């Protein structure tokens, strides 16, 4: 048993590395799957582990895209002129400019989004329950509208980034591994974080925030920290997506509240809120479901997706892991009081 776990993780890691070589036609699909896993895991940090259901995490995805693009372009060319030309092809990027720009842009995207989370969180974390969800959704929608009217970043047309400079198949591998590395780092980090006192404290906030306050837990500080870490990773994958997609525009791609913004929540609900593996499994289930319906039931894909969301929310709220916890609590080390009543009322 003690050996089984490291072996499992080692096998998984090998699979992650070789998967894009075994399935070369699915490289972009697998990269998108990683994106889903990462946004699901980060959504679960606040939604599942801390009890704050944000519908505005897509804000960090979109903002990450824009910050990354502005920095990535900015190190080589004047941004305003570049976006004004709408990617007309008169701007060349050397290999160094491309990779350095991508690296710095992705990093800046993460840091900027973490700072945004601290500022937005300072105002929105006084909202509870559905009010927090609506409040954060409002931030994401407003940001999308604002950016689509901001000419410096290309307005409604969005931004076209340089194309991957070498072989395009190599480019697919490059983006796959950028996503995969981010995902593995995030998973390992969360696996550790949920076992620390910090992890226990945010669970306490979820279970009974008033009690947590009465016990002296720094509730606001912990909530801001959690969301900032979550936003960092969403910003990073936003930045990677920006380079992977080459062209993006504000409302349908960057601040896509009704697509990715909702998908990440559905992934977590499917897999099970508040568990480490739930969001990962949920993202895989969701992505497979989505791709199958898009391929074989074209025209009905949104109906199928809507039905999946309704069924999940109504009948399967705890998700796969939550259902397992109820039916097999002993697998999770949960023990409950036997029915015999001893002593107290």
């Amino acid at each position, binding site marked *: 048993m003690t050996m089984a776990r490291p072996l499992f993780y080692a096998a998984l890691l090998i699979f992650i590395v070789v998967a894009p070589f075994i399935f070369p036609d699915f490289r972009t699909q697998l990269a998108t799957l990683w994106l889903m896993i990462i946004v699901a895991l980060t959504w679960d940090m606040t939604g599942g582990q801390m009890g704050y259901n944000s519908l505005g995490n897509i804000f960090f995805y979109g903002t990450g895209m824009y910050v990354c693009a502005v920095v990535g372009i900015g190190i080589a060319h004047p941004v305003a002129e570049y976006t004004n030309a709408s990617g007309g092809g008169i701007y060349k990027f050397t290999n160094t400019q491309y990779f350095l720009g991508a690296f710095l842009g992705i990093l800046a995207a993460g840091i900027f989004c973490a700072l945004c989370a601290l500022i937005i969180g300072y105002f929105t974390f006084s909202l509870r329950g559905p009010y927090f969800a609506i409040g954060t959704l409002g931030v994401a929608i407003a940001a999308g509208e604002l950016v689509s009217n901001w000419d410096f970043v290309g307005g409604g047309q969005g931004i076209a980034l340089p194309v991957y400079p070498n072989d395009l198949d190599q480019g697919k591998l490059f983006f796959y591994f950028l996503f995969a590395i981010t995902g593995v780092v995030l998973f390992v980090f969360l696996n550790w974080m949920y076992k620390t*006192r910090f992890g226990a404290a945010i669970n306490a906030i979820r279970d009974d925030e008033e*009690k947590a306050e*009465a016990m002296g837990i720094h509730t606001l500080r912990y909530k801001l920290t959690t969301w900032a870490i979550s936003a960092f990773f969403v910003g990073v994958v936003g930045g990677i997506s920006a380079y992977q997609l080459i062209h993006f525009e504000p409302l349908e791609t960057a601040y896509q509240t009704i697509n990715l913004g909702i998908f990440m929540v559905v992934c977590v609900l499917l897999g099970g809120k508040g568990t480490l593996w739930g969001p990962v499994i949920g993202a895989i289930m969701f992505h497979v479901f989505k791709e199958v319906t898009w391929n074989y039931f074209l025209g009905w894909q949104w109906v199928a997706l809507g039905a999946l969301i309704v069924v999940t929310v109504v009948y399967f709220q705890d998700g796969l892991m939550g259902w397992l916890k109820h039916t097999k609590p002993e697998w999770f080390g949960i023990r409950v009081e036997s029915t015999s009543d001893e*002593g107290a009322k």
Partner: protein
Amino acid sequence: MDTIIEVTDVSKSYGGVIANKDISMQVKKGSITGLIGPNGSGKTTMFNSIVGYHPINSGSIKFEGKEISKLQVPQIARLGLLRTFQQTRIYGDMNGVENMLVSQPHRKMSLRDAFTKNKNEDYERADHLLEFVGLYEKRFLQSGSLSFGQQKLLEFAMALMNEPTCLLLDEPTAGINPTLINGLIDRLQRANSEFGITLFIIEHNMRVIMNMADHIYCLAHGEMLAEGNPSDIQNDQRVVDAYLGAH
């Protein structure tokens, strides 16, 4: 003895209802002080005012000489002034040990400390205190599945884990089986004498509070009705009338 909590002329109203009117009281350091009064007399409102749960209309509340009436709940808790709830509150999805570990005092904990795992001595202290309240055997059970009385004991142990200097207990014996009450009284007294924690207790069970308290305040209709040692209170005609509804 020094005064640890000093309440001076505190008033609190909810809309038109005056829940506390010009209340003054002192809790001596190291004492067990009682707060009694009929239902709706403003006892829990007083507790909520002290721990910063709501703003007060006027007056001053000092803890160890520091004005706390403008502070937030977690800030006051981190000063070492803690409360338990009338409707027992524990983290129901966690087991007993997890409930204890998350209750460690956060006043000494920086953000960096928070990003560490619990140490062996933390587990030992949790086990020790769970044994102290008699829940050691049940420490790995999901705490939401414990009986009400056991949850109450767990909440008390969690409060002790937090190392408070002063503990406000809102009806610690309510809903507990009479046979367990004696054990609870004993533990409260030991928390006071062995751990040196000042106790300020709201209690309806007269036998309990008269046995334990050094000093008792009695509220009625939001006003201070009487104060004194237990025998004074027991012999005070106004207190008897208030409980019988003559007031």
